[in-house]
Every structure is written in C-alpha cells, then in structure tokens.
C-alpha cells in the first residue's frame, strides 16, 4: 500500500508522519504538495498537523480551498482512507468532509500535553486493531481543538457510533477533568458517515515509539495497514 502525506504551506507534522510510516513501519509513503491533484497512486491520505497558511482567518479555512483538497474530496468519495490529524481535522471540518467545527480551546490557551483517549468504535478502518473501550495514551498540541456540533448533528454522531475517540482518564472514565479543551461530549475524534474519513485532534505519530513516551498511536497505523492490506491482497 502507499500513503500520501499532504504538505500545505505551514504544515509541520508532515515530517513526523513521514518518519513513523517510513522509518518505523517501512511503508511506502510520499509527500503530496498542496498544488497536486492526482492521488490515484495512494491508498491512504494523511492531512497532518501544523498551521496551514498560518491558520490565518481560522484554522483550515484557507487550506480547504487549495487544489489538493478537491482531489482529497474525490479520493474520499471513492472510499479511500483519509486521516486528518490536528490541523488536518480542522481542514476536514472546514471542507465539509466531516461535520462540526473546532473552536478555540475553552480556556483560550494552547495545550501540548499527554491525554488519554477511550476508543468508542473499533469497527472502523482506523481502529480495528483496538478493543472496545481501550484507552490510548496520545498527546495533543493545539489551540483550537474544542469540538462543537449542533444538537442534531451531535445526536446523529452519537447514535451512529461515529464518535471514535473521547478524552478520558487513564482508567477510561469520561470526565470533565479529562477534557483538555472543552470539546462537547469529550469528543477527540469522529468519522464520516461512510466510515473512511477520520479526524482526530491528538497526534498518533507522536506516540508511535516507546522512547517518546508511548507507542499507543501504533494501534491506529496498524489498523490502517491491516485494513488496506486486507482489501488489496498481495
């Protein structure tokens, strides 16, 4: 399989995602420049973290208009996997590929810290290696991660199991104290209706090697690789 990592001007987790997929996993991976429109060689596109276009105006608001995003929408419509991390999640919401929005953190400060995520749905291509209710230790690093959706959308997300990750305590309890940014229902990651586009604020690429403090992010990469390999038998 082949991963593509999108680089917008101002993206900075591109190098980190590339490192994990290429050095830790030995996967075939290439960068996708924001002006590119042909993604036909890829199985999974990653929209990494950073400050695309400086996050000027609003995080993701400018990036959604870049040429590559049209191609990403077609790619998603074709059922291929799209993973938006941090700024990538914000861009997916701005682009309408995921519902809701990421507001300024409720305490108005940037937060870089380890958080614990409870896996709410293991029947997605991004979490099939996890067990229901498993707790993953993965860090966040954002100023605008406060997930918000209108009540109808929220109810639908909850009803259809599209909330994939929730901020929780290390023991897996979903509490207000475990919520680092004010996200509604402690939501840390959601998936689209078709189940192939996932957005999450935490950074799995920063938790993919024990030496950095956690390797729990590997459950996500393992899931993706297993899912794609299952559909493209060698």
């Amino acid at each position, binding site marked *: 399989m082949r991963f593509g990592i999108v680089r917008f*001007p*101002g993206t*900075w*987790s591109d*190098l*980190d995602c590339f*490192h*994990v997929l290429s*050095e830790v996993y030995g996967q075939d991976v290439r960068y996708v420049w924001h002006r590119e429109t042909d993604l036909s060689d890829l199985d999974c596109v990653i929209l990494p*973290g*950073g*400050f695309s*276009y*400086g*996050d*000027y105006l609003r995080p993701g608001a400018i990036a959604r208009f870049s040429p590559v995003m049209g191609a990403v929408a077609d790619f998603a419509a074709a059922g291929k996997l799209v993973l938006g991390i941090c700024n990538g999640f914000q861009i997916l919401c701005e682009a309408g590929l995921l519902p809701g929005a990421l507001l300024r953190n409720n305490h108005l*400060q*940037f*937060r*870089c*810290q380890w958080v614990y995520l409870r896996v709410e749905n293991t029947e997605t291509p991004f979490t099939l290696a996890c067990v229901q209710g498993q707790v993953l230790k993965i*860090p966040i*690093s954002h*100023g605008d991660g406060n997930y918000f959706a209108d009540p109808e959308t929220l109810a639908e997300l909850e009803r259809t199991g599209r909330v994939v990750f929730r901020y929780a305590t290390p023991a897996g309890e979903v509490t207000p104290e475990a919520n680092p940014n004010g996200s509604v229902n402690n939501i840390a990651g959601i998936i689209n209706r078709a189940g192939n586009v996932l957005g999450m604020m935490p*950074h799995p*690429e*920063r938790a*993919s*090697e024990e*030496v*950095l403090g956690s390797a729990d992010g590997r459950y996500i990469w393992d899931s993706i690789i297993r899912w794609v390999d299952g559909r493209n038998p060698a």
Partner: protein
Amino acid sequence: MDATLLKQVGLTEYEYGLVVERLGRAPNHLELGMVGALWSEHCGYKHTKPLLKMLPSAGPRVVVGPGEENAGVVSIGDGYVVALKIESHNHPSAVEPYQGAATGVGGILRDIFTMGARPIALLDSLRFGPLSLPRNRYLFNGVVSGIADYGNCVGVPTVGGEVFFDPAYSENPLVNVMCVGLAKADRLLRARTGRPGDLLILVGAATGRDGIHGATFASATLGAETEALRPAVQVGDPFTEKLLLEACLELAESGLPVGLQDLGAAGITAAAVEAAARGGHGVEIDVDRVPRREAGMTPYEVMLSESQERMLVIARPEDEAKVGAIFEKWGLNYSTIGRVTADGLVRVLAGGEVVGELPVRLLTEPPTYRLEGRPLPEWIERRRLDLSALADLRLFATPWDSSGAPVVSDVLIRLLASPNIASKEYVFRQYDHQVLVNTVVGPGADAAVLRVKGTSRAIAVTTDGNGRFCFLNPYVGAMIAVAEAARNLVCVGAEPIAATDCLNFGNPERPEIYWQLEEAVRGMADALRALEIPVVSGNASLYNETEGRAVLPTPIVGMVGLIDDLSHVCTPGFKAEGDLVVLVGPPPDGVDPASALAGSEYLSLVHNQVRGEPDIDLDLERRVQLTVLEGIRRGIIRSAHDCSEGGLAVALAECCIHGGIGFRDWAFEPGGRLDAALFGETQSRVVVSVSPGQFARLQELARNFGVPLTKLGIVGGQRFTIKGIVDLPLGVLAEAWRQGLVRALEGAS
C-alpha cells in the same frame, strides 16, 4: 555635529570624530545611520568584545566558533553537527512583550537555519519582577503567549528554559531565547560572500518602516519616554518564517554554492556588511529593488528597517533561476537587490545615484572600550551574612514559643510553592514541546533530551543563570551558572560539549556595571576552562536598566550535551520502592552555613534578604559531575537531580513529586544550622537513587573520583519524611509545587 541627530543614531561625539577621521569626510545622513546601527552595542559589541576574548572557544568538536557565523557549531559524530546560539530580546519585550518575545524567537530561529541546520529545539530563559504587580503579570503573560504563538506556528519544539522572579527585573524583564539546530556536516552553509559578481537576493517579507533604530534602541537604557519607542519593536509573522525555514533548508539541501545571512538588527545594512566582511569583499545595493510594504520609504529607512522574516542569499549569477525556483515553490517573494564587489566598499544606490558609500571595515570595526570597573561599596557589604541575627528553623509551632522562627514543614511547602521553584507546567504546556518527534525528556527535568534520528545518540539541552548569586559575587555567580548548566546535563546522562552565553547587564558605561560584566565573564571563562567546555556563540544585552535601576547581573549559559547511548538517559524522579537515596557531593551539614544560605531562595523568601557570599569549588564540581555521569552510563544510577534553588530538602521533594513516590528513613542529626542543611544552596551536589545492590559500585566510583557520598534514606510510600524533622503526605507537597505558579498569577489578580 547636531547632538540630537547623534543621539538618534546612538553615537558619541568621540565616535563621530572617529568616523570623520577614518572616512576623510563627514558622513551623510544615510551613512551616519548605518554607522550608528553597526556601532551600536547590540551589533558592534563595543564594551564586550575585549572581555569575550577571555572565554575559551577551542575544542576538538568545534566546527564553527564564536563570531565566525550566525551561530556556533559542534560535531556530535556520525556525520552530524549541532548549531547553537542564545540571544536576548529584552528591550523590545519590555515595551511590547508579545511581539518582543515572538520576534526574539523568530530571530534566533533564523540564526540557526541560516547555517543550513534544521532548528530542533528552543529554550527560553525568562526573568520578571514579582507577579504581585499588574505590570509584571502583563509582561509575563505577553511574553509567554508571544513565545507560544510564534514557536508553535513555526513547528519547532520549545523543550526547556527557566523562569525566575525578582524585583530587580520589574522594569526590565529578560527574554533570552536559545535555539539548537541539527545538520549533516557536509550541508552546512556559511554567511559570506562567495566572489565578486555574485548576486545579493533578498527573500521573504517585504520591507516596512518597523524596527528602524531597533539596534540602537536595544543599546540604550529605558526611561519614561520608552513607550514612545513601541514602533521600534518589530512585528512577527511566524507563517512566513516557516516558509523561509523550509525554503532555506531546501536551498542547503540543493548543494548550490550559496551564502545565507539572516536579517536581524540593522536589517539589510548589517546583513550585507557582515557577509561582505566575512568574504573580504564589498557589496553594492540598489534600494529601488527592495520590495516595500509601503510607499515613500527613504533609502535610510530601507537600509535600516528591521522588518522580520527576511533573508539575504548570496548566489552565483548562473544559479539565480534555480534559487528563485525554490523560493517560488514556497510562495516567497524575492528580488535581486545587488551584487558582490571586489572593492571592499558598501555602496548604496537609489534612483541610479550613489547615495552612500562606506568601507565595509569601517562598519565592522567599531571602537572598543576597556573601562575601569569598580564595585559599589554597599555591594561588597552585602556579602556579609550575620546568621546570629536570623532565627533557625524550629520543628513545630507551639503556643508558648513566641520566637516567630520559621517552622520546617511550612518553609518546605512555601518554597515548593514559590514561583521560582514551583512547576512551570503552566508555561510549558502552552508550548509545543514534541513536534519533530525527538523529545525523549521534555520540559521540567534537569535538562531536555532529544534523540538524533537514525543514530543511537541523543543531545541534551539546558539554560541556566542565577542573578542573585551574580549580584552578590559576579565572578562566583557566573562560575555557578556554568557549573549548574553542566550539572543539569550530567543529571540526564549527557556529557557537556558546548556552551552559548547571553550577558544581561545594566549600562556598562557605569563603572560598577562594567565591574559586574568583567567579573562575570572572568568567572564564566574560569569555569568553562575547568570543565573543558568551549563557548561557540553568544550575545550581549547591556543597558538593561531604567532610570539608573539595573537588572541583577544575569549571565545566562545555554549548554548542549551529548548522550552516546539513548538507553542511558536519566530523569529526576525516584523510580522504585526500596531504592537508596544518596547525596553525591558535600554532605548536608558539611559546609559553612553562611555560604550555603548566601543568595538562597530560602533567605529571600523567608527572611527577605539577598545577602552572603556564594561559593563553588570547581575541582570538586568536576569530580562530582564525572561520578554522576559514569554512574548513569554504567547503569548504577536510576535517578539524578541537581540540588539548586531550595537546596537539598526541595531537591528531595522534587524527586518524590516527579516519581510519584515518597521518601523515608533518613535519620538526620544536624550538627549545625538546620536551615542551612535543608535549604542551603551549596553547589556541586546531586541527589541520586540506586538499587541497594548497586550502592557498593557507586561508592567505588565516588572513591575513585574523591567525591563524598551521604546515604540519605529510602524511596517508598506516599509520605515525605525526615525522621523527627518533617513528615508530610506527598500529595501536600505535590499540590504546593504544581499549583504555586498558577496561584501566584491568580492570587495576585
């Protein structure tokens, strides 16, 4: 000569005379402005250059030494080099804390990627007045958000630094930023002209009227009129910086023979002149070709603007298109603004006419001053500390004891909650400290540790400096700053390999300030020699004073250490129940109490005094560091933490808090003063823990290096206990330490 004009450009009558003499004519307005900027203390190091020669700068790992380039460079093996530099942005931050600090980060980042090195770590050394004053809270919050917003957007992790509060910094906060970069040795770039005919290409942000006279402003004392200087503070754009960073690294990777010089203080003038001086050439600049942010700018404004996020590229004419293509890819504007000449002159053209022409050497060789320093008598008097007048600690408060003497447990809790000691998590959680996935040990430990991908190695980074010690004795205080930085690196298992320094002082034209400066540089030099660590870069920020009130003399030492094997990284937290806790270095009450308490946080917080004469034995320091480093490398030591502010009791408590586990079984019988033993800040001490079976090996190691060891107690439980002296739940101490800074911020509002 018009005195107002001279004051505006920051030159003295004498200096103006020198210019006229060397030039053989009077300079015009533009030329005068260029000389003023480059002869400012900030650019020209008029008062510090002769002193900085004292610092050792040679060593087997040194690739680029101080003053040669925008940053120093040392080799770390496996074909990799590390670039490092620290720089101040004190004056701008005092006037406009958010932009002042933000552009401080931007400037130091450019110093590093100018070398072709990818910035992999930022550290901030900050000093403020007490948070009880509203203005200090404004400065503190502004500086922290400025650093956060800039560093986070650019995507370089902020992994360490320190924050310290003292009334002497109330009007003049210190904002020192250190950056460390990583490069392949064969991809390093130089900031110099290549050969005559090469092109000068200006890339990045357009040039505006911001920051004009910034270098001059940074070389003057602050006063009532300072608010009016806010326009001299530059405004940062981290997004453009990020694009510049990536484009410059792509340029370095391209292998094209280019020189790169960033634009900082004194803008185009300093960048072009410094590159020409290094290359031994001249330069010709056509200001009409400089992209402007606003119409009607004069050549003077264009040449001296300090607009941020700009870079000067020196490229061969045949490579112009290739260089341009890289900048176009990153969406950056660029323009060829001039060329390298052979005549050793900097020539400025406007409207096809020569509007200024000066010898490069005139600009880069300002007069230097060696003054006669003399301490104030009351400073020397401060070294006397009469302990008989200070009540020692008592164990309990009892109704019948009206002595008012401090109680041990209360003091321990108060010290842990003091903003100078309390956790700085409130600050560093606002900084991305993990991006680039190298952070093995993040902020909060003795030093941060970053792995070097593709090798088994890691580097450790830290900054240190104690203005109170330096105030009481600048020579000894500066030695302690060096020793403590090195000790911090050793505590995480790293061998110190290079230093960078930032000298933060008042007005050096005053004999007492010059004395502090000279003594401090001498102390740094002696300590660096004793510990065999070269200085490879540095910066001086003088004139940190307002209406005659100077900051504490504060030399900040930034240091990089090398860890050969990533499996031997050590952290401060206690690890396991039953481990022995051992003090490496002078025993708890084995030193003179007056020197132990000199300049201590305890003395300041509890007795409201900054007095005494701090002391350090560099030979013992070196042997203590060797013992700890070897102990970590051989897998004997499981945790290590430097004893610094708050002394031994605070260090022990911090080891417990970091490890989430208690301490017990220390039967301490003080022979002298209890406060000096528990809270004295005697140097050259490290608290380590070892499994009981390893103690004999630690003893042998210490014996070989001639270093005293004291067995203190045992790791375990959830209480912090010194038999008969302190017995507190760990949770109480942890709460005080974790919440101290936030409470000081909130309680004050």
